[in-house]
């Protein structure tokens, strides 16, 4: 276990890189996923098709394949960029499919009378969704969204394998194979790094849930 103290700066560096990946991907997938959920309940058939097509593709494809397609497919067609943003993009596309479905379940839980009343007072579809339905829907989806985001934090380890480097996963590999530390000690450190991310995320979500809860 001495490795955790000896190599503490490296762990901190890995932790911060993982945190950066997760923050960008979490913001991206929450925004994109909510937008897609809007598409899926929209009155316009093409938008619904885009929404359900996106979910079908990205929810059913292994994350490693999505990341592979982004990191190696895009340069193949002439799009060059940093692997960090390729990784964040891939993770966002994948996670947004799950966010979309969680948000859609929340939209479906809002009584239809709410939307009907909103339309009756002359709100447009976008206004109905953003001002009436989504604020109620998002309350009920805090627990499932929390699970999706925590799963995303753990999935970010796969991003580390696609050229990004410097994240907790890569730190673990560097310490075990290049510097020859015993795997159990190194991986305990990596585990602690992820727990420092996921446990507070869970606590924060529980707090949000309490704060947004409605007395029923």
């Amino acid at each position, binding site marked *: 276990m001495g490795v955790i103290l000896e190599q503490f700066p490296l762990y901190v*560096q890995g932790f911060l890189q993982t945190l950066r990946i997760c923050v960008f991907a979490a913001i991206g997938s929450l925004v994109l996923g909510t937008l897609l959920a809007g598409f899926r309940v929209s009155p316009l058939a093409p938008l619904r098709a885009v929404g359900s097509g996106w979910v079908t593709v990205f929810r059913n494809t292994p994350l490693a394949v999505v990341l592979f397609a982004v990191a*190696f497919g895009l*340069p*193949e067609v002439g799009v*060059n960029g*940093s*692997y960090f943003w390729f990784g964040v993009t891939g993770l966002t596309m994948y996670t947004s499919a799950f966010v979309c479905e969680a948000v859609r379940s929340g939209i479906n839980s809002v009584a239809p009378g709410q939307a009907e009343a909103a339309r009756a007072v002359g709100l447009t579809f976008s206004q109905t969704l953003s001002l009436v339905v989504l604020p109620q829907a998002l309350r009920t989806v805090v627990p499932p969204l929390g699970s999706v985001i925590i799963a995303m934090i753990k999935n970010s380890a796969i991003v*580390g*394998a*696609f*050229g*990004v*480097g*410097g994240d907790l996963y*890569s730190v673990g*590999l*560097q*310490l*075990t*194979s*290049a*510097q*020859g*530390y*015993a*795997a159990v000690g190194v991986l305990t450190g990596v585990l602690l790094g992820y727990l420092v991310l996921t446990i507070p995320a869970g606590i924060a979500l529980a707090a949000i849930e309490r704060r947004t809860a409605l007395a029923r």
Partner: protein
Amino acid sequence: MRLSHLARVAAVAAALVLTATACGGQSPSPGSAGDGPTVAQDVTFEAGTTMDRLAKAGTIRVGTKFDQPLFGLKGLDGKPAGFDVEIAKIIGAKLGIPADKIAYTETPSATREEAIEQNRVDMVVATYTINDKRKERVSFAGPYYIAGQDLMVKSDNTTITGPESLKAANAKVCSVTGSTPSVTIQEYVDQANLVLFDVYSKCADALRTGQVDAVTTDNVILLGLVEASEGAFKLVGKQFTEEPYGIGIPKGDVKFCEFINTALKDAAADGSYEAAWKSTAGAVSPQTPTLPPADPCS
């Protein structure tokens, strides 16, 4: 009776397969390196030593890489081939163990120490750089070869001339996560310009598509990639580290270590070391290296 009929058919089929396999085992496999070193006959060793145990067992378990062109690459015939494998054969031969009695286990970089500590292999010959950190867990015989870290770039690249030119060119450099070269190169490039993958083939792909400007690792590994690129890549040709490749054995087995060092010295003297190089890595790097002086065993 339908079942027993089926069973008979299955038995005949199994027998045919077994016969075919047995035949395949006798013929020399394509791509194997010539006759190999001469196997010592009737060797005896001091009782209780590793050599004695292995010679009596008549077999040795060797950890090597299965994905390392020129050094340890598992071919379509299921047998690894390369310079590391030939070195293992030389040591096996000195123990009186013929090449076909060597059992190979894949030992990728991350699990070599574990394979030795958990007694899954008797020795590891897997482009295994000797360093102090690894010496805390395993002992090394050799070195049997000194590799050095180099850079591989596109053939038309003239701006990258060595590690010192990387910063000026703001070059992105690719290497493999957790490899020694990936740590060394951090002196020459910023973290943001370092791209890490799990295998070198991905680095080669990234170099081809322009995602990175250079790939760095030991020269021999790069030579394999240059050969495979059919002229698209070239080596910068400026080694900036010394990577002594050793043979990993259980920690503290001094007698086995000394035995291996003697075996290597003999192989260099009788030409089997050179033959091992010529038949493998010599295809890309014709200059046969001289056997480096052995480190003291501990």
